[in-house]
């Protein structure tokens, strides 16, 4: 009952959640049919838009709104471990995203079936990877929401991503063989949300190192998925820790 209510709340807390979902469907549909980019590139658009921007939009203020309105003060006096609050809300987001990507897949297949437009090869793999990426970003954004107001949540994460991207590319451009460049690159690849790892996995780049021949090497794919899930848990850990340790002053005199 508690789990159900907390997960349901992630969808029904604000009307804009529904608007985000519908807007995202429209955006996918547009990119899929208008051929603005090369057809193969659509999957990367789906990956970034659904895996990175969607979690930021859905999780913005997921705790920040409660904290700034004072609603958290009543919730936090209820007799349960506050980590549950975080875990079920994150699971709610993850479930929402799973349904979102399922509907996306169905919509794109219908559009393709009717109009013949778009490129549907590997679509299910891209949707699955988008969902995995969604989970990592949702965990980061939800954790940040425990300490940052809604207005800064998105901006803060975007600034960090841009900073890392800039740092990585400028170092790589100037000193590709430098130790620091390699450390930052490895950090970006294995500790930050796994953009590269998942992209390479779904593009079949790991197959050549694999014991199993084929585009989707099972062992490497399982390793990538496990790594992504571990990262999600790792980011969530900080959110749970912050939530269970932080103070909630309802009204300051």
């Amino acid at each position, binding site marked *: 009952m508690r789990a159900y209510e907390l997960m349901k709340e992630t969808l029904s807390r604000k009307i804009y959640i529904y608007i985000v979902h519908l807007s995202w469907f429209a955006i996918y549909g547009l990119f899929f049919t208008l051929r603005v980019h090369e057809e193969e590139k659509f999957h990367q658009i789906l990956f970034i838009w659904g895996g990175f921007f969607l979690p930021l939009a859905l999780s913005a203020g997921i705790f920040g709104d409660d904290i700034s309105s004072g609603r958290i003060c*009543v919730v936090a006096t209820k007799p349960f471990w506050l980590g549950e609050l975080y875990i079920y809300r994150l699971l709610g987001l993850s479930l929402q995203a799973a349904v979102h990507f399922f509907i996306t897949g169905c919509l794109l297949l219908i559009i393709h079936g009717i109009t013949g437009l778009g490129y549907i090869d590997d679509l299910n793999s891209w949707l699955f990877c988008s969902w995995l990426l969604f989970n990592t970003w949702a965990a980061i954004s939800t954790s940040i929401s425990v300490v940052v107001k809604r207005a800064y949540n998105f901006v803060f994460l975007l600034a960090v991503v841009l900073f890392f991207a800039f740092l990585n590319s400028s170092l790589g451009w100037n000193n590709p063989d430098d130790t620091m460049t390699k450390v930052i690159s490895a950090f970006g690849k294995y500790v930050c949300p796994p953009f590269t790892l998942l992209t390479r996995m779904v593009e079949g780049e790991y197959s050549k190192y694999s014991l199993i021949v084929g585009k989707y090497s099972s062992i490497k794919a399982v390793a990538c998925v496990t790594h992504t899930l571990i990262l999600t848990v790792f980011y969530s850990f900080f959110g749970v820790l912050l939530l269970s340790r932080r103070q909630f002053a*309802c009204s300051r005199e």
Partner: protein
Amino acid sequence: MIRNDNKQTMVVECEQLTKVFRKLLAGRSKDVCALQSISLSVVEGQIVGLVGPNGAGKSTLLNLMAGLIFPTEGRVSVCGHPARSIEARSGLGYMPEHPAFLGRYSAWATLRYHGALLGLSRQTISAQIDKLTEQLQMDEYIDRPCSDFSQGMKQRLALAIALMNDPSFLLLDEPSNGLDPIGIIQLRDLLKKLRDAGTAIVISSHRLGELEKLTSDYIFLYRGEVVSFGDKIAADRVGRLHVGLVSNANQIAKKLLSPAKLLNSSETELVIAVGDEDEVPDIVSSLVKGGARITSIQLQKEDIEDVFLRLYNERN
């Protein structure tokens, strides 16, 4: 210590409670000591009124008891458990000063949500919602979204949330804010019933007249310190004896009364401070012996507002 009767179970106990808001975390220019070495206890079936001017530390004390903030020093225990523990929270009902709800949820959905957080079963939640809806007369708007609620409706809903688990300890921050006169009377009756059923209740309120109708146990806070406890406030209450005289009241007062006792005087009336009702016959007798011709006598006891004002003025 307000009261510590051995026969009654201690519900809340605060020991040497100090709370300092650090400047870095609170976004202030300097550290603020919101509470300083406060020790108190509340037993079952007791209503305690927290009174004090703005910034006295009332809400901070409530937040500490609710386990929402951590003490800098000292400890708070609720039913023998640390304030933030799950065991302490299982018997707690908390109503904040400014209740907030999800605007899209109806009152019914909000109560169901909080019932679920409490770990109640579906059947218990439904039964509790029906009971509270009737008790707090929320039938008319139980299905309306909270975004449409007036302040009074919000207060009732917040109180219903606090009562969902039939708490043994209730913390209420300005519960009568925005309530109409009928709502205030209903709230008072409900709190009396809860008290009689053994619930310990701590109320922070600026409506001293309302508090006085509920309890005689007060904690007067001023700048983070307990200035006076309930029993002491009651004992310190000063009475005003209004004595009407035919004439020469000023002369008689100078002759018979000390300046500390004389609160006010005119040609035909004396206002005399009285610590105890037993003093009245002696005062009247001495006035008559001194030649006063008395036309009327009226003893007016200080109410809690007068006490509050006096204590506040003494410190300013």
